[in-house]
C-alpha cells in the first residue's frame, strides 16, 4: 500500500539555483520564512469529479491547506494569509507577478494545478523564489484520488527539502498507544495516524494491554508489547495484513522491543528472576542471541543507524544510566554522567546524537547528547514526559507527556508532543483520545 502509490516525475530541473533562498534549520528559527501557498487551481469539471469521488468541495484548496499546515508546524515557515493574495491561482501558476507577491512580503511562492484525469488525481506544483523572480522547482504527481492527503504531504516534503537542503518528514505516520478511561484501569489500543493527526485508525480493540509499538524501517511492520492472555510478550504485527505473532519463545516477560536498522532483527529485553537482559531475535532464522548478561536491569535498547552499536539503559551502577556497546554486547561503556537518572536512549537517524529521558529533582526532561555522552542539551522540562522518537530526518522529536493529578487524583491526561532538536517549536499533537508511546515512521515516499 505504501510503495505502489505515487509516480513522480520532474518537469523542469532548476538550473544553477545555489543563489536562491535557503532556510537554516540548524538553529532555533525565531524568524520563519514568509511564504505564500496559492491554492492549487482546478477547472470546474475536475472540481465536480473530485467532489463526487472524495466529497470535498474543492480538492485544490484542501491540498494547499495541508501544505500550509505542514510548513507552518515545522516552525521554519510562515505561510501568509490568503486574503492578501492579489493574483488568481491559475494565473499565478503560469507566471507569477512577482511584484505582487513581493508586496505582501512573500519570499517564496507555491503554485499549482489539480486535474481529474482517467479517474486519477494529477497534481503539478511549482516553487518560486519571489525575490530572485525565478522558478526553483516544478513537479507533477499522478495517483489515486484517495491519496490526496499524501500528495499534500509530499509537496510539503519537496518544498522543505528544496528550501532547507534536508529531507522532509511530512509524508510519515505515527504509531502510538491510544488511551482511555481512569488512570487505575487504563484501556490501551494500538493506533496509527498520519504525522498531522489525520487518518487515525485503531489497530487493536483494547481487550488486552498494549505498550511501546515501534515501526520497522519500511514502516510496514510494528513490534510492540502485548499482555495477551496475561503474558507480557513482544509481538510482531504486519499492518497491512493484520497478522500478529509472538517474537521468540521466552519463559517470561519480553519487553522494550525495537527493530535493527536493516529490519532483520528485533532487539528487546527479557526479564527473569529479577534481572532483565538484552536479547535479539533474527526474524528470518529465529535464532535468539543474548547480548547482555548482568544481574542488573538492562533495557530500552536502540541500535545506531549503521547497526554496529547499541545504546541502552542499565542500573548496573546503582541507578538508571545510559550505556553504549558494540552490537555483539562487547565494550560496554557508560555515557551518561550528569545529575539524575537517564533512560530511553534512542539513536538519531543521523547517527550523531542520542535522545533520552532524564529525571532530576522530581522533573522529567527530554534531551540529547552526543554518542560519547558529551554535549548534553535538555530540550524540555515537565512534570512527566518520556520516550522520545526521532523524525526520519533527525530534526524533530516526538514524545508523550502526562499531567499531574489534583488532590482527588483527577485530571490525568496523556498527550503526544513534538519539539525541534533546537529546543524550539514545542507542539501538542492532536489525537482523538489520550495518547502515549509514539513512534515515528520512515519517509513513506522515498
Amino acid at each position, binding site marked *: 500500500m505504501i510503495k505502489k502509490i505515487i509516480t513522480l516525475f520532474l518537469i523542469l530541473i532548476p538550473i544553477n539555483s545555489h543563489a536562491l533562498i535557503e532556510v537554516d534549520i540548524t538553529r532555533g528559527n525565531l524568524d520563519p520564512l514568509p511564504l505564500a501557498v496559492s491554492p492549487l487551481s482546478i477547472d470546474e469539471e475536475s472540481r465536480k469529479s473530485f467532489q463526487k469521488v472524495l466529497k470535498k468541495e474543492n480538492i485544490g484548496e484542501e491540498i494547499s491547506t495541508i501544505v500550509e499546515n505542514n510548513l507552518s508546524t515545522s516552525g521554519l515557515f510562515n505561510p501568509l494569509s490568503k486574503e492578501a493574495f492579489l493574483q488568481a491561482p491559475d494565473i499565478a501558476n503560469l507566471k507569477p507577478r512577482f511584484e505582487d507577491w513581493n508586496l505582501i512580503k512573500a519570499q517564496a511562492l507555491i503554485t499549482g494545478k489539480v486535474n481529474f484525469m482517467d479517474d486519477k488525481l494529477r497534481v503539478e506544483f511549482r516553487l518560486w523564489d519571489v525575490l530572485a523572480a525565478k522558478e526553483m522547482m516544478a513537479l507533477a504527481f499522478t495517483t489515486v484520488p484517495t491519496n490526496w492527503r499524501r500528495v499534500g504531504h509530499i509537496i510539503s516534503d519537496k518544498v522543505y527539502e528544496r528550501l532547507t537542503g534536508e529531507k522532509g518528514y511530512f509524508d510519515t505516520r505515527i504509531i502510538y498507544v491510544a488511551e482511555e478511561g481512569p488512570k487505575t484501569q487504563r484501556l490501551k489500543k494500538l493506533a496509527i495516524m498520519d504525522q498531522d493527526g489525520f487518518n487515525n485508525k485503531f489497530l487493536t480493540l483494547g481487550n488486552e494491554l498494549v*505498550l511501546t509499538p515501534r515501526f520497522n524501517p519500511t514502516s510496514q511492520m510494528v513490534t510492540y508489547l502485548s499482555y495477551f492472555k496475561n503474558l507480557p510478550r513482544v509481538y510482531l504485527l504486519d499492518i497491512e495484513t493484520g497478522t500478529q505473532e509472538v517474537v521468540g519463545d521466552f519463559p517470561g516477560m519480553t*519487553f522494550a522491543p525495537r527493530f535493527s536498522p536493516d529490519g532483520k532483527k528485533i532487539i528487546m529485553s527479557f526479564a527473569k528472576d529479577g534481572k532483565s537482559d538484552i536479547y535479539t531475535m533474527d526474524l528470518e532464522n529465529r535464532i535468539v542471541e543474548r547480548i547482555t548478561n548482568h544481574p542488573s536491569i538492562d533495557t530500552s535498547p536502540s541500535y545506531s543507524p549503521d547497526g554496529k552499536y547499541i545504546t541502552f539503559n542499565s542500573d548496573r551502577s546503582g541507578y*538508571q544510566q545510559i550505556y553504549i556497546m558494540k552490537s555483539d554486547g562487547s565494550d560496554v561503556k557508560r555515557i551518561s554522567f550528569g545529575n539524575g537518572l537517564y533512560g530511553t536512549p534512542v539513536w538519531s537517524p543521523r547517527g550523531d546524537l542520542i535522545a533520552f529521558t532524564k529525571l532530576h529533582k522530581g522533573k522529567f526532561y527530554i534531551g540529547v547528547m552526543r554518542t560519547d555522552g558529551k554535549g548534553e542539551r535538555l530540550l524540555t522540562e515537565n512534570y512527566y514526559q518520556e*520516550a522520545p522518537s526521532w523524525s526520519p530526518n533527525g530534526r524533530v522529536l516526538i514524545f508523550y507527556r502526562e499531567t499531574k493529578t489534583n488532590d482527588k*487524583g483527577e485530571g490525568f491526561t496523556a498527550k503526544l508532543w513534538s519539539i525541534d532538536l533546537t529546543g524550539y517549536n514545542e507542539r501538542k499533537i492532536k489525537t482523538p483520545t489520550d495518547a502515549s508511546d509514539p513512534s515515528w515512521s520512515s519517509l513513506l515516499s522515498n
Partner: protein
Amino acid sequence: MILSKIFKNTLLVLTACLVLSACATKKEIATDIKGSMQGDVYTGTDTVKYLAEGVPDRVFFATNESILTTASRETLRAQAAWLRKNSGINVVLEGHADERGTREYNLALGERRANAAKDYLMTYGISSDRITVLSYGKERPVDSGSNPLSWSKNRRSVTVKAN
C-alpha cells in the same frame, strides 16, 4: 537434612537483614507527615486486602528499590504459612512501580519486586511451581494521585490467588 535446610534458610534471611540494614543507614529515614510511610515505604493499610485473616495480600517498596522491609517480610511469612496450609492454592505475584519512572524500566522493576517476594516465599518453603510472577510496571496504579503517598501505595507486589 531438613535441619540443614532450615539452617540455610535462616542464613539467607540473616543475609537479607544485613543487606537491608546496610541500606537503611545509607538513607535518611524520615517519618511521613501522615504517618503512613516509613522513609518512603507505605506502611498504611488503605489499599491492602487480605488473603485470609491476618494475611495481607501486598508488600510495599521504597522508590527504585526492591528490598523487602521488616514489615514486608512479616507479611510474606504470613502468606507463606497460609500457602503451606492451603497447598492447593497457587498464586500470581503482581509487581508494580509508581508513575515516576520510564515505562520500560518500570516493567523490569515490577518484575524485580515480584521476584523479591517470590524468593522470600520460596525461602519459607513454597515451591516455585506454585508461584507465577507478572509485572505491570506502572500500568495499574491503585491510587491515581500525583503525590509521594499515592506513589508509595503503588510501589507494591500483590499476591493474587491464581485458582
